[in-house]
């Protein structure tokens, strides 16, 4: 079966982001970029399923600026078979991304769409669920375990009070949480090999449903900073502060 994996290029998770003073957004110029960590976990899972003989082809999709091709090459080096890049400098809401992915899913007919549960820039946590709704497929979100057969997926989901295991019919959308796996590093030979794997660039104009504007960003600001605190030197001093100064115990 074919698997569709979507990846996004984001600011590296270990970089401290800075907000532009003019309120237009977060400064991405010269920032170190990386594959969204949850997408990397989703891709790793797809590769493991392929290695286990359950998956025949992994199609990687990324939507965004030209440099997103680096992220796709990285994914191809990890083990994806081919890549589709929908090139655009515009930023999109998850509903628009979901429409693009839906159209690609209609064309490619994968049995599984494996996505990260959220990107670490927008923190929306929406695309997988929206894609599932548009395709009328079942969804297994925030998963930490996945077992696949030819017709079903069984997934352990991280829910509010603990864990939930569900079974869904394929085709389905699955979104990866942190504890699903630890992604591999691509080896040098596979990085070289990835350069000759197919990467198709498509124009945004091919995806009319994605072009409806839903949101206008008015301003982006930095959150208020906390006032500096004090050090105490003993349990007694701490108790005193909590009781008499902060009055919280």
């Amino acid at each position, binding site marked *: 079966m074919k698997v569709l994996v979507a990846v996004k290029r984001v600011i590296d*998770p270990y970089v*401290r982001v800075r*907000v532009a003073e003019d309120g237009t957004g*977060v400064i991405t110029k010269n920032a170190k970029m990386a594959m969204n960590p949850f997408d990397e976990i989703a891709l790793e899972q797809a590769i493991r399923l392929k290695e286990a003989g359950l998956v025949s082809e992994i199609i990687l999709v990324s939507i965004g600026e030209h440099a997103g091709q680096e992220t796709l090459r990285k994914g191809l080096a990890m083990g994806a078979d081919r890549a589709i890049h929908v090139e655009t400098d515009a930023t999109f809401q*998850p*509903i628009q991304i979901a429409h693009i992915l839906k159209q690609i899913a209609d064309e490619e007919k994968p049995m599984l769409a494996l996505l990260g549960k*959220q990107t*670490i820039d*927008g923190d*929306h*946590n*929406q*695309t997988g*669920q*929206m*894609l*599932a*709704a548009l395709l009328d*497929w*079942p*969804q297994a*979100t*925030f998963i930490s375990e996945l077992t696949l057969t030819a017709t079903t997926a069984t997934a352990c989901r*991280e*829910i*509010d*009070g*603990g*864990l*939930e295991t*569900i*079974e*869904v*019919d394929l085709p389905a959308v699955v979104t990866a*949480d*942190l504890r699903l796996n630890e992604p591999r590093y691509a080896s040098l030979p596979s990085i070289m090999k990835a350069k000759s794997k197919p990467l198709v660039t498509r124009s945004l104009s091919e995806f009319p449903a994605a072009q409806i*504007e*839903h*949101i*206008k*960003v*008015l*301003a982006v*600001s*930095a*959150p208020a900073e*906390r006032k*500096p*605190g004090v*050090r*105490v030197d003993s*349990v007694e001093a*701490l*108790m005193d*502060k*909590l*009781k008499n100064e*902060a009055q*919280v*115990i």
Partner: protein
Amino acid sequence: MRVLVIAEHSQETCFSATDHAVTAAKQLTSDVDILIAGEGCKKAAERAATLEGVTQVLLADHGCYQHQFAESLSKLILTLAPEYDYFIAAATQFGKNLMPRVAALLNVAQLSDVVAIESADIFVRPLYAGNALEQVQLLDAKKVLTIRATAFSATNHGITPAPIKQIDTQIDWNKTRFIRQTLSPCERPDLTTARIIVSGGRGLQSQENFQLVERLADILGAAVGASRAAVDAGFAPNDYQVGQTGKVVAPQLYIAVGISGAIQHIAGMKDSKVIVAINQDPDATIFSYADYGLVGDLFEILPKLITALQNQ
């Protein structure tokens, strides 16, 4: 303008996350309905009906909603959609699973984790784990939001209940099947609404030692949290995790024990009113967010603190 709040419940009772979602809804309009969809959930509906200022509770009580799957609930909400302008749920795992599906069926955007409502169509939400805040205008006519429970106070439960209206719509969906649920026993307060939270990190070194954190929490009547490092190391279950990818909390008092203060953890607790950090590394990042920092060996400090609290 009418709002539909989608309640989160255990069939038996309506969870407090819903009380916060109702407060957000009331900031938009006085016409707030609550939907309870489940099986055998009449008690949850009765509980929701006592929330002050609620117009009515819609009760969809049928076997097809037993496991509250997003697939069937979103279709049910779509049938109710012509009546409403806003659809709101708390940004819990339940809300995050459901509301994007609702928005996609309506072909509208969804705003996640809304922390402020500025007008009928202007909202504020965090980006980059709370390192930036985005003020956005929603252009869609139907507006779907999840709200961060800690950013809105809880609506009180009153005496006079709102009317409960039965909804008979059934949704046929058999592509998702429930296998099992493993819930952590919870005698302690819920993390997202607790007044005090004690959280443990990698510094606890083992699952056995993590009990020190739990003992301290129990004396304070607090909820127990954990850093991602502590969860990954198996010291604490996954639903204890506080942080960008876990739970976002804002208690009156947050005590971080043996937590260094990774960006993603800070994102989940920095809105707490008073933060205490106990860590042996004087340079740990957590100290720059703490109101009160105590540098030292937590295995000496925690027993002393527990004794001091017992004696007071």
